C-alpha cells in the first residue's frame, strides 16, 4: 500500500467513526462506538504495516520517540489534575446504598458527571494531539527536518 492510500483510508475510517458515534447516540448504545473505534484503530495499524514507501530512519524514529515522551510527560499532569477534580465531585456524593432520601436540590449528583467527564476526556485527548504535533515540529526543526540543501 502507498502512503497516500493509507492517508485516504485514514480519512474514510475517521468519517465512518463519526457516523458510528451518531448511531451510538441515536440508539443510546455506547458499545457500538467503543467496539467500532477499537476495530477502526486495529485496521489502521494493520494497514500501516503494509505501507511500502514509508520513509523512516533512525533520525525520524528518534524525533517520534522524543515527541511522544514529552507529550506524555506534560499530559499526565493535565490528565491527573482533571481526574482529581472529577474525583472530588464523585466523593462529594453520598456513597453506598440505599439512596438517601430528602436530598437538598443543589446537592451534587454523580449521574450526569460521568457523561460530561467523557467529553472532558475527549477534549484532553485533542489537547494531546496538538501537544504531540507541537513537540514533533519542535524536534523535527531541531534535527534539521526542514533545512535547505547546500548542494
Amino acid at each position, binding site marked *: 500500500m502507498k502512503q497516500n492510500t493509507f492517508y485516504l483510508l485514514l480519512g474514510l475510517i475517521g468519517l465512518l467513526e463519526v457516523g458510528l458515534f451518531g448511531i451510538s447516540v441515536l440508539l443510546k448504545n455506547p458499545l457500538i462506538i467503543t467496539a467500532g473505534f477499537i476495530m477502526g484503530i486495529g485496521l489502521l495499524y494493520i494497514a500501516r504495516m503494509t505501507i511500502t514507501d514509508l*520513509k523512516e*530512519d*533512525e*533520525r*525520524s524514529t*528518534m524525533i517520534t520517540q522524543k515527541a511522544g515522551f514529552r507529550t506524555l510527560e506534560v499530559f499526565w499532569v493535565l490528565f491527573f489534575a482533571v481526574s482529581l477534580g472529577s474525583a472530588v465531585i464523585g466523593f462529594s456524593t453520598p456513597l453506598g446504598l440505599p439512596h438517601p432520601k430528602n436530598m437538598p436540590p443543589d446537592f451534587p449528583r454523580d449521574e450526569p458527571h460521568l457523561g460530561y467527564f467523557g467529553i472532558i476526556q475527549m477534549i484532553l485527548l485533542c489537547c494531546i494531539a496538538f501537544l504531540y504535533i507541537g513537540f514533533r515540529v519542535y524536534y523535527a526543526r*531541531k*534535527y*534539521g*527536518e526542514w*533545512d535547505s*540543501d*547546500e*548542494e
Partner: protein
Amino acid sequence: MHENMGSGIQMKNKIKVYRAMHDMTQEALAQQIGVTRQTILAIEKGKYDPSLELAFKIATFFGVTIEEIFVYDEMKSP
C-alpha cells in the same frame, strides 16, 4: 550518540568532503546507506549525530575508518 551533547562537546564530520571526493549527492548517499536525504543533511550540519551503526555504514561505504570521517571535538570552555 543520537544528539549533540552539551557542555562543549561536539561531533564534527567530513561527510561533505568525502561526498565531494566521490562526486555524490546527498540523495545518492542516503539511498546507498538506507536513510533519508534529510538525515544526511542533518549529520553534515551537525544537527544530528548518527548511531554507531550508521556511522559504520557511512565509513564502510567510503572505505575508511570512522575516525577519518567523524571527529570527537572537545571544545575548551571559556
